[in-house]
């Protein structure tokens, strides 16, 4: 039997805000072929569409740990749907030097580098960044946030002009 937090997540992916993005091709749940053999809650696998760039994929997959959903923020990073393991760091999307994009998807220099995004929505990246809650109050995760807030935040970056490719 699924846990209350898993049922909450499943309800959120059936609700209109998620379905609107899915209908527009902005995001979706990863297919069975992209999942590891031991895929089970609280790990979930999703994809987000990216702007077209030369030799870059049209979508990026993420593997998220949703323990404590929605009370606790998610944590996770890019996923390789073919090798069915964490995406190699040299395949991560790259951003304009000095941009917010480049900082959010940095792969070194913080707790969780390479397995989390450098962003207040990631509970591992939050460690040691108490100031973020006052500097970016609109990005403080609360139990009124859903997976749509997470997807929309990062998918917007992946379709922004600051995204350069891989």
């Amino acid at each position: 039997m699924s846990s209350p937090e898993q049922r909450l997540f499943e309800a959120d992916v059936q609700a209109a805000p998620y379905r609107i993005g899915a209908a527009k091709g902005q995001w979706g749940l990863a297919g069975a072929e992209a999942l590891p053999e031991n895929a089970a809650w609280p790990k979930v696998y999703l994809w987000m569409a990216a702007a077209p760039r030369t030799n870059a994929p049209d979508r990026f997959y993420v593997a998220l740990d949703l323990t404590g959903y929605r009370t606790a923020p998610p944590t996770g990073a890019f996923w390789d749907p073919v090798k069915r393991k964490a995406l190699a760091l040299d395949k991560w999307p790259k951003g304009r030097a000095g941009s917010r994009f480049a900082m959010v998807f940095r792969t070194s220099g913080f707790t969780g580098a390479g397995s989390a995004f450098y962003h207040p929505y990631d509970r591992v990246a939050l460690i040691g960044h108490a100031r973020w809650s006052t500097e970016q109050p609109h990005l403080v995760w609360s139990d009124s946030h859903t997976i749509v807030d997470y997807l929309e935040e990062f998918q917007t970056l992946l379709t922004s002009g600051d995204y350069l490719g891989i």
Partner: protein
Amino acid sequence: MENSDIELFLHAQGMTPQAVTASPEDTLRKVLLRAAIIPEGKDEVLVFVGECEEALKEASDIEDGVDEHEPIDIDLTLDVLEIHRHRHVHYHRCHHIAVEVNFGGKTKRHEFSPATTIAVVTQWARKKFPNLDPAAAAEYVLQIAGTATQPRPSEHLGEVVSAGTCSIGFDLVKEITPQG
């Protein structure tokens, strides 16, 4: 749900969107009543179909533009209204939302359809201020004036405005880059 049923998304002021399914032969009035978006017996309602992107076609030197997105007759069927293509239906008491965006000591104005996403308003605003560095434009977002609230890009203007008002002000602000 029958195979021919249509999934559509209902929007209104102050409400999280609803996803509903309906037959192409249903009138939009029937769908809106069933979802309790409009009350029984209310004849004068403004309902828009689709998401309006007219402002993106506006030349950057046009001041005080107005969207031409017109409300539709809700007694028509979903099939006639081509809801299968438009997907979004927005009920609002305002024909337009008067938007002011402030940046660098200047203000730009436009009267948008309530069925305009924040993403579209943001794109419009980024083009309207010649003193905004184009290289950094992607990092500028809309924040409701006098608050720390930054609506999500997919939200409709009509959902974001306060009840009883047909206008809203935003500041165009640089999104903070995580540091430290």
